[in-house]
């Protein structure tokens, strides 16, 4: 158990909501728009559900043979001229990256977005050792200039308005605070980044997929920033989580058809780049990172979370995420995927997150690799209940949790009986002022004749707490 402070997402969400009448509705609208584009793309592909099933199976196959595929990947990547390193945890990842940069005398490094590098808190580590780290993805750069972590795994600065960005750039880059045209703001960063790309001794990327058969890894971006970082400086370092492996080149067809459609509602990202070995005249280092993943693989209830391809669809569809803002989760991974990943890093610190959900199940419905996200959230609630992390939970008026959460089979039974009312449950939970802060600034909408909660109270009142 850590001595880190417990994260209180409900309180943080409340701040996001009451902050003004602009940010939260905008956030909600943008992400919902993205979700609608995803739905349209998915609907246009007749074999969509079959693709999800195949993707899920390929991931499960890989994860149940992970040692084999990692060795195959390492052998092939090495054969192609890459240096492959293995990092047990975040600290070792950062040490490895630092020592490579030091060996090459790199003082300023430019990187593209990588959630794994966020997870390892790599930037502060390197900066404390005198290496300047520049984010090249526009959203990441915005967050870096503001001293904030990304709030979304695909759209890091989606919680900010164009006015916020204009003011931030005025403060940090010296532009006109009143010009908030997104074209101009994008141009500012393009012109700011380009000389750095040309001057730096190293570019860093993450890796969306690693193909065992050929020792190739893939990076998907819309800006092409990873590609500049990989093709211009003499040194390219890539951090890849060990769960990113897939067996064969042929498998990529399935994943690339799903990834960008799920993430942003487009057929692909603008650039889907495949690196098999260093560029001509360059040097390539690949760091394979565990950082808790092998342990997660051994968790019978939770290993399926390793299938995640980080598309963010579960966040875009999640009614709680859309209204809370990603920063309220207080963790590297937010939204439904964060709710099931974060406690594997620190059970105490993130004990509240499993309750930051309506269990509406929409995340599981959209997940391109069919992770049983909402079931895992429920299982995490049980873990938290069993570990006695309930005080804050009660404050959130999930006081009935104690019993039901300890008996998920009852929850599922309830779910079935209450099916007709379940459609309304998330809205009810979200909008009822007395219940929780997500809905406090909202009007009470019409509620179904019998809500999930009414049903629950009527049938389980013997367990209901006084606070009800």
């Amino acid at each position, binding site marked *: 158990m850590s001595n880190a402070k417990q994260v209180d997402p409900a309180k943080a969400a409340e701040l996001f909501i009451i902050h003004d009448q602009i940010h939260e509705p905008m956030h909600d609208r943008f992400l919902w728009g*993205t979700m609608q584009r995803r739905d349209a793309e998915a609907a246009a592909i*007749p*074999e969509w559900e079959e693709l999800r*099933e195949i993707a899920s*199976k*390929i991931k*499960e*196959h890989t*994860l*149940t*043979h*992970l*040692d084999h595929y990692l060795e195959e990947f390492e052998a092939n990547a090495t054969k192609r*001229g890459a240096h492959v390193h*293995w*990092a*047990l945890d975040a600290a*070792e990842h950062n040490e490895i990256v630092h020592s*490579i940069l030091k060996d090459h005398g790199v003082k300023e490094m430019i990187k593209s977005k990588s959630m794994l590098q966020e997870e390892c808190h790599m930037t502060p580590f390197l900066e404390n050792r005198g290496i300047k780290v520049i984010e090249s*993805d526009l*959203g990441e750069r915005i967050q870096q200039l503001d001293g904030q972590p990304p709030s979304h795994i695909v*759209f*890091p*600065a989606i919680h900010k308005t164009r006015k916020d960005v204009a003011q931030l750039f005025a403060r940090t880059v010296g532009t006109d605070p009143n010009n908030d045209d*997104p074209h101009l703001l*994008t141009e500012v960063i*393009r012109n700011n980044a380009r000389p750095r790309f040309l001057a730096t001794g190293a570019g860093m990327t993450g890796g969306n997929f690693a193909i065992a058969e*050929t020792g190739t890894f893939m990076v998907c971006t*819309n*800006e*092409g*920033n990873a*590609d*500049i970082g990989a*093709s*211009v400086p003499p040194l390219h370092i890539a951090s890849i989580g060990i769960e990113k492996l897939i067996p064969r*080149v042929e498998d990529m*067809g*399935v994943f*690339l*058809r799903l990834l960008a459609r799920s993430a942003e509602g*487009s*057929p*692909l990202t*603008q*650039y*889907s*780049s*495949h*690196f*098999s070995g*260093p*560029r*001509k005249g360059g040097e390539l280092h690949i760091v394979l990172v*565990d950082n808790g993943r*092998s*342990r997660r*693989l*051994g968790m*019978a209830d939770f290993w399926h979370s390793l299938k995640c391809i980080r598309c963010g669809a579960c966040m875009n569809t999640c009614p709680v995420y859309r209204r809370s803002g990603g920063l309220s989760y207080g963790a590297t991974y937010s939204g439904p995927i964060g709710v099931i990943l974060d406690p594997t890093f620190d059970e105490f610190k993130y004990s509240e997150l499993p309750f930051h959900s309506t269990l509406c199940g929409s995340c599981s419905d959209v997940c391109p690799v069919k992770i049983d996200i909402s079931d895992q959230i429920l299982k995490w609630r049980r873990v938290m209940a069993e570990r006695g992390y309930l005080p804050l939970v009660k404050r959130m008026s999930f006081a009935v949790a104690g019993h039901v959460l300890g008996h998920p089979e009852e929850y599922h039974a309830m779910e079935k009986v209450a099916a007709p009312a379940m459609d309304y449950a998330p809205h009810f939970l979200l909008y009822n002022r007395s219940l929780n802060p997500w809905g406090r600034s909202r009007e009470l909408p019409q509620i179904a004749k019998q809500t999930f909660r009414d049903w629950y109270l009527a049938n389980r009142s013997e367990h209901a707490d006084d606070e009800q």
Partner: protein
Amino acid sequence: MQTTNSSRETILGAIRNSLPKDKVEHPRIPHFQRSGERLKTEFERHLQEAGGVAHDVATVAEAEARLMTLHPGAKVICSAVPEIAGTRRAEDRDPHEFADVDVGIVRALFGVAESGAVWLTQEDLVVDALAFLSQHLIVLLDPEQIVSDMHEAYRRVRLDETAFGCFMMGPSATADVEATLVHGAQGARSLNLFFLPPAQMPVVPASTKTSRPEPGA
């Protein structure tokens, strides 16, 4: 990095101890039914949605004329294709030397109808950076070389034969400021695609290369 080797063993050991007991088979990936749409039409439609523009050009001369109309102010036009000379040939040089390129010209091996993406490898680009440092890109594509979807596309790529390959779907883009779509975030600001089969270059034995006949001579 002295710990690397022991970490490798530790990680692989931990994985072997944690491997789920029930093994899952690799699923079969079926051949999916194609849409009835003409491949070229579908490709063009998706390319346009991705911010690229397709042009039908009948001859190399027409392609060159179109290039000049599209980029009248371009000073450095760097070509990696034999058909169009440009002002500079893409050569195997340090990538930093491509920083002043206004327009890069490359040929894609094939396109993908379901996305409007083209497949570009290190060999097509001569130097990878040409595709990313050029302010604008012109991509040549033989209209006969369009596959229907990503499954078919991956049957054509040879990742074991190239160090770099990229599916490029239009110009650089971002939507990071208030979800507003902006082109030219970091990479190319525009992508124009010319449908043009490769020129039938006369086959000349290596020893006589210096005396290559002029086209039409």
